[in-house]
C-alpha cells in the first residue's frame, strides 16, 4: 500500500459520494476513485476543472482522509473570488464526477510508525493534512504522543471541531489546543490571539524531546510559526512546512 511506485501520474475521475458541510465556507468531499493506489497522511491531489470552451483550471487540495479509509476525502475552503473552490463548495453535487490526479508529495507526510512526539500547527484550512495525520494516528495500534495547536478566525470557522473534541477525549496521548484570532466567544477557554512564543512554550514539546513538527496554513502563519519553533531550539530539519497562497482557490 501507498508506496509511490513507478506509476505515471494520470488524470482520473472520482465520483462524489458524500458532501459534508464543515463550516459555512468549508466542505468535505468524499470521493470514490476507482483504482486509487492508496496515499500517505499529508499528501495532496491536483484537481482540474474544464469549462465548456476548453479552458482549464488546476488547484492542489490536501487529502483529509487517512490511508485506511474507503473514500478519498478532500476538505475545501470556498474562496469567493477563486476559480475552482466556488465550484467545489457550492455547485458540485453527490453523483457528480471530479477530475483529479494523485497522490502527490512525499515531503510533508507522516507515518504512524514514526514514534517521535508529534507537533501539528495548523492555520485555517491548513488543518486539513494535519487531520489526515490525526485520523491515521487514531487507527494505529501504537500511538505516539501528539499535540495539535489550531488557529482559526472565529468559533464557527473551526473545521472538524466536534471530531477533534472526540479525538482528544479518547485520552490516548493527543491534546488539542485552539486559538481564535478574531473573536472571543462567551465562555471560551482557549487562546484568543495569534500563535506566539509564550503559547508554544505552554503547549509544544520541548526541543530536548526531539519532536517532529508539521506546520500548514497561509504563508505568513507558516513563516511565523516555523520561526518561533526554531527559536525554541527546534532543529529546522524537524519542522516540515506547507504553505497556502493568498489566492489559488
Amino acid at each position, binding site marked *: 500500500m501507498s508506496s509511490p511506485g513507478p506509476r505515471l501520474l494520470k488524470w482520473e475521475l472520482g465520483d462524489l459520494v458524500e458532501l459534508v458541510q464543515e463550516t459555512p465556507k468549508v466542505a468535505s468531499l468524499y470521493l470514490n476513485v476507482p483504482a486509487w493506489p492508496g496515499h500517505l497522511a499529508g499528501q*495532496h491531489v491536483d484537481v482540474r476543472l474544464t469549462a465548456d470552451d476548453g479552458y482549464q483550471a488546476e488547484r492542489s487540495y490536501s487529502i483529509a482522509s487517512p490511508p485506511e479509509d474507503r473514500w478519498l476525502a478532500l476538505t475545501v475552503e470556498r474562496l469567493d473570488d477563486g476559480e475552482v473552490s466556488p465550484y467545489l463548495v457550492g455547485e458540485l453535487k453527490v453523483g457528480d464526477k471530479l477530475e483529479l490526479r494523485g497522490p*502527490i*508529495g*512525499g515531503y510533508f507526510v507522516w507515518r504512524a510508525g514514526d514514534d517521535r512526539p508529534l507537533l501539528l500547527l495548523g492555520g485555517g484550512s491548513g488543518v486539513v493534512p494535519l487531520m489526515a495525520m490525526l485520523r491515521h494516528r487514531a487507527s494505529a495500534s501504537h500511538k505516539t504522543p501528539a499535540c495539535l495547536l489550531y488557529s482559526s478566525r472565529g468559533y464557527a470557522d473551526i473545521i472538524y471541531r466536534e471530531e477533534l473534541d472526540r479525538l482528544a477525549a479518547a485520552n490516548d496521548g493527543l491534546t488539542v489546543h485552539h486559538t481564535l484570532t478574531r473573536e472571543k466567544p462567551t465562555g471560551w477557554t482557549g487562546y484568543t490571539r495569534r500563535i506566539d512564543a509564550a503559547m508554544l512554550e505552554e503547549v509544544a514539546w520541548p526541543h530536548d524531546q526531539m519532536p517532529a513538527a508539521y506546520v500548514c496554513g497561509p*504563508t*505568513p502563519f507558516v*513563516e511565523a510559526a516555523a520561526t518561533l519553533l526554531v527559536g525554541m531550539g527546534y532543529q529546522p530539519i524537524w519542522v516540515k512546512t506547507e*504553505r497556502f497562497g493568498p489566492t489559488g482557490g
Partner: protein
Amino acid sequence: MKMTEEMKLDGNAIGGLLREIFTVEMTMAETTCANCGQANPIGRVDVYVHAPGTVVRCPGCESVLMKIVHGGGRYWLDLTGTRTLEFAEA
C-alpha cells in the same frame, strides 16, 4: 511582510508539475544551490507561481534555482541555478 513574501509557496505546491516532468515523486529530491551550496529537499524550497512560469528559489540565499514554463504542449526548464538535483529511482 512584503507582497512578494505573501505570494511565496513551497516546493510541495509543484509536486504534481515536477512529477509530470520527472515521472517520479520529487518533493523529497534534494537540490543543491549553485550560488550558496545549500542543499534542500524540494518540499523545503521557496516557490512563486504568479510569474508567467514557476520560479523556484533557494530558501538559504534566495537565488533562483529553477524556472519552469509549461504551455503549448511543451516544457521549458532553466536549471542554471541548480548545481545538482538528486532523487530516488521509481
